[in-house]
């Protein structure tokens, strides 16, 4: 059985086959791994890879696997980003930045019409007693800023648009 996965925009090819003693032999990057698997509960898996023990959490949806290994989180995609987006270059488009947590706007650094760079702080949102800088995901022009300093925002509220 062969598949491809994408992790951080890089493609990885895996090949799996079952061996006689109930182990799975996995080939990845020209190396072979002997793996035995125990399913602990729904998404908890105990892997024994070449004698080494790993407790892993794996959950999947139609697009990707969410995996925790030793406290680190990995998002492994079933298809590449370019497959998902159609083609490259589709990046510089209008982006609406929403919040998925309620909070209070502490500060707004820019105004509508300002040019911003990718990663530049646009405003500060306070949630869980912490102040968080919300940054522009791309270089462009701020076409809309919704809340003002002091406003409370609810989940899914539009914060700003950048084009």
């Amino acid at each position, binding site marked *: *059985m062969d*598949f491809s*996965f994408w*992790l951080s925009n890089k493609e*990885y090819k*895996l090949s*799996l086959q079952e061996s006689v003693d109930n182990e*799975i032999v*996995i080939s*990845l*990057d020209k190396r072979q*791994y002997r*793996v035995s*698997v125990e*399913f602990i509960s*729904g*998404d*908890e*898996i105990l*892997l024994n*890879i070449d004698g080494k023990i*790993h*407790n*892993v*959490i*794996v*959950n*999947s*949806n139609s697009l990707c*696997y*969410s*995996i*925790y*290994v*030793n*406290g*680190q*989180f*990995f*998002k*492994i995609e079933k298809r590449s980003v370019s497959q998902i987006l159609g083609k490259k270059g589709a990046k510089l488009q209008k982006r609406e*930045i*929403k*919040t*998925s*947590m*309620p*909070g209070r706007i502490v500060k707004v650094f820019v105004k509508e019409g300002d040019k911003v760079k990718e990663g530049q702080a646009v405003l500060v949102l306070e*949630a*869980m*007693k*912490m102040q*968080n*800088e*919300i*940054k522009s*995901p791309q270089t462009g022009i701020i076409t809309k800023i919704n809340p003002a300093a002091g406003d409370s925002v609810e989940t899914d509220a539009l914060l700003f648009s950048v084009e």
Partner: protein
Amino acid sequence: MPKMFKKILIANRGEIAVRIIRACREMGVVPVAVYSDVDRKALHVRLAEEAYSIGESVPSRSYLHVERIIDAAKKSKSEALHPGYGFLAENPELVSRCEKEGIVFIGPPSEPMKIMGNKTASRKKMANAGVPVIPGTFEPVKGEKDLKKKAEKVGFPILLKAAAGGGGKGLRLVRNRKDLLSSLRLAQSEAKASFDDPSIYIEKYIDEPHHIEIQILADDFGNIVFLGERECSIQRRYQKVLEETPSPFIDDEIRKQMGQIAVKAAAAVNYRNAGTVEFVVDQKKQFYFLEMNTRLQVEHPITEMVTGIDLVKCQIEIAAGFPLNFRQEDIRPEGHSLECRIYAEDPENDFMPSPGKIVHLHTPAGGLGVRDDNGVYEGYEVPLEYDPLLSKLITWGRTRKEAIHRMLRALSEYKIYGIKTTIPFFKRILLHPKFFAGDYNTHFIANLEKETDGRDAEEKVIALIAAGVKVYSERKSGLTPQSKKRESNWKFQGKLQNFSNRL
């Protein structure tokens, strides 16, 4: 002859409410919890003996609402009230309301609380009592001319600080005179916005300082003891991240001096109950009074681990009118203790808050010298409304090295899945050669964040293999209804990831 309380109301939530509930149960006192709407299923409610609703999820309408807390205490017939830390713990109004209603407040009287709550008043009081304070002004500056004169007298670099302040708000470092006025204006406007009070005073800036605090206990009979120090220099944005005792920076002689000065500070304001005197210590080990926290500290467990003394029980006994049952010479700290504060924050994404459902929780308690003071459980949904502290993981060892290795082992077993936590960040701190050598100050984390964090290649391979195994088993068996159902938990997680991805 004093009598122990029958019932105590705990005016807090999360791990500290759980901590106090446990102390009550060990003393045969009925612990009464209060909860906001979103906290109906919180761990502190589940572990209490009685529980009362006090209002909406937003803190100002529940945990910060003095009258609702007082109502719950009266309704439950609680004889005493423990405020924990944060929320109303240092609010003199709650203390006066308790006094009026005949409810014993488990903490200091309102007078020392008021003095210590004001930065300039406490500096003055301490200086008069012979406690060394950081050179600077004892009054807010009275305008730009006054500022210039006094800044020159103190000598650059200086700090401008909000008189009503805390948490780094209204704080500005001024290295030379040309930045003085612009910094004042920024500090004033921040102070006004944060505390509704633009007053600013001056302190000499101490470079590469240590933050070291002394735990004290004072009873109604004039006994005041100190219980060693806590090294709190591992900070991020003025928030403590990891604490240890004893401090690897100071020696027995300085330790004793600081302890005696802390006792003097407490005596000067007629302090009662548990309190903490914070000091700034410079590179030459000169120490200066910074502030006094008139409550239990988050990091109190490390003192308990080395002294064997249960500070919450002591607080309750003192409040009930019992004398301390040990003297200064009975307090002999043994070994070394560390605390890691595990927050619902994503260390790989600028410590963005990460509320949501804890899908899996494996805690590492077990073996000698491991303590996990947490406030959550598997299946619990960490709310957006409050402090993101999930757990304090504490270890003890005969030596500092043993305590560190034990912490690394405990962290390797600590698994919280469904939300992001600071667990991986602590491994970076503990394994850092400077930290391991005990050679660090308050700049440690800022320097660490400049270093790149090499992601482990081994973990990547394991993740890919796990994904392969998952596909393999799904294709062999077909998706089970159960695995479909569980996806809903992860949808929430997915949403949060989208949140952090977008930002």
